[in-house]
């Protein structure tokens, strides 16, 4: 019978058996890379396993693609930050010695900050970074970007509040 049961009960095993291949194909059609698709499909089921929500899922494929989409965005974020980091390293005047652990920590921090600034336009992002990282005064930032000090403060406040909401105690 093709009809789902009333209030279906799933286990992660049964979901994996029924949908893993499909999910991998779904991911592959989006990123065109078989290895990434396989990893992300696997990670999706790991999430499902830790979330312990499997038995109550009504529409497994919808649920799985929602998780997978989030992981896909994380992957893009990570790749974008890594690429930009390598480029910035290459652009440094003198060679920069770092061990793998330091690099890992720096990248994790950058990825976390990038995630906090999600959803802000380029201007807010730029103002926040100039104020926080270059430690420019509001007047200097305003001059550089051709906006008023009030505008600088507004953008900075907005971005800071968003970050503080996401920082854990």
């Amino acid at each position, binding site marked *: 019978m093709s009809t789902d049961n009333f209030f279906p009960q799933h286990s992660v095993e049964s979901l994996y058996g029924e949908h893993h291949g499909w999910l991998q194909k779904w991911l592959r059609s989006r990123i065109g890379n078989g290895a990434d698709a396989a990893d992300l499909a696997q990670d999706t089921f790991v999430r499902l396993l830790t979330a312990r929500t499997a038995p109550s899922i009504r529409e497994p494929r919808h649920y799985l693609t929602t998780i997978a989409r989030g992981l896909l965005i994380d992957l*893009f974020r990570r790749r*974008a930050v890594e*690429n*930009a980091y390598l480029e910035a390293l290459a652009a440094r005047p003198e060679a920069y010695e770092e061990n793998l652990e330091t690099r890992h920590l720096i990248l994790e*921090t950058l990825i976390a900050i990038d995630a906090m600034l999600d959803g802000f336009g380029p201007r807010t*992002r730029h103002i926040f970074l100039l104020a926080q990282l270059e430690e420019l005064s509001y007047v200097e930032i305003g001059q550089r970007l051709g906006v008023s000090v009030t505008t600088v403060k507004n953008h900075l*406040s907005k971005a800071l509040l968003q970050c503080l909401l996401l*920082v854990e105690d």
Partner: protein
Amino acid sequence: MASPAARPMPKNCLEMAVHWYVQLNDGDADDNQRQAWQRWVAESPDHARAWARVEKLQRQLHGVPMDLALPVLTQAGVERRLAMKSLLVFAALGFAGLGYEFSPLGADYLSATGQRRQVLLPDGGRLDLNTDTQVDVHYSSSERLITLRHGEVRLLTAPDNLVPVPRPLVVATVHGRVRALGTDFNVRLGEKSTTVTVLEHAVEVRSRLAPDIAQRVSAGEQLQFNARQLRPVRAADLNVSAWSRGMLVAIDWRLGDFIAELSRYRSGHLSCAPQVAELRVSGAFTLDDTDAVLANLTASLPVKLRTFSRYWVRVEA
């Protein structure tokens, strides 16, 4: 620390912390302001907690070499937006490979009873047609207009990159116009009214005969309207769009309503006897085999089917 940390942080404390931070970082900050800030921090544990977050954020930000952080974070923001755009393109191509049709700039689409169709719009947006639906797609120089003449559609919009100035995207019915504000939404045309359900972002709705009144409907909300007026916005049943995945999802529905809904997907006559119409139904059902759905009902509810032919079915006690 354990007990205050367990409470959620009041947002206004964080807003105050931001306010103080922005003040104190101004080159003009003086001792009076610094003392006032110290009093504020000492005033309550929540204030202290909020300020501790500010400091934690600062530590985090300065844990990265400055000459790396700025270019990386500026560039990463741009690159990721581009990546997301390419993802949308891939998604569209993926759909095309799975039997989507590309829409020319002006076209009419029909779906038969029990059929669903998926159309890829010229701008990359996606239009799903539910059972027994008729739409016209017309992209002019000023507007991207989708006219729903019968049935139900779900629209996943794409930004208008075809022309320098993006054109508004509108779904029109005999009852009025729904303007997309970057979104995913469902429009169902009934005999007396149209119902729009927003799944992502928002739309703006205007009745045909009262076009000066606009109502914004946001994600998770639903609005019913006819040619004269808009009903109040209410929380949506987000399962309304399950049909676009080939499902009908019912949660504690009257059997009478369930059968009426199911009958949209079947040719011929399907009805429900009043004696059983108040029974309750819950579940997720595939729309591609309504015979199986009906058989399933007889297994789980005290009902039987009276069938004269494939095209005449009545659900009875």
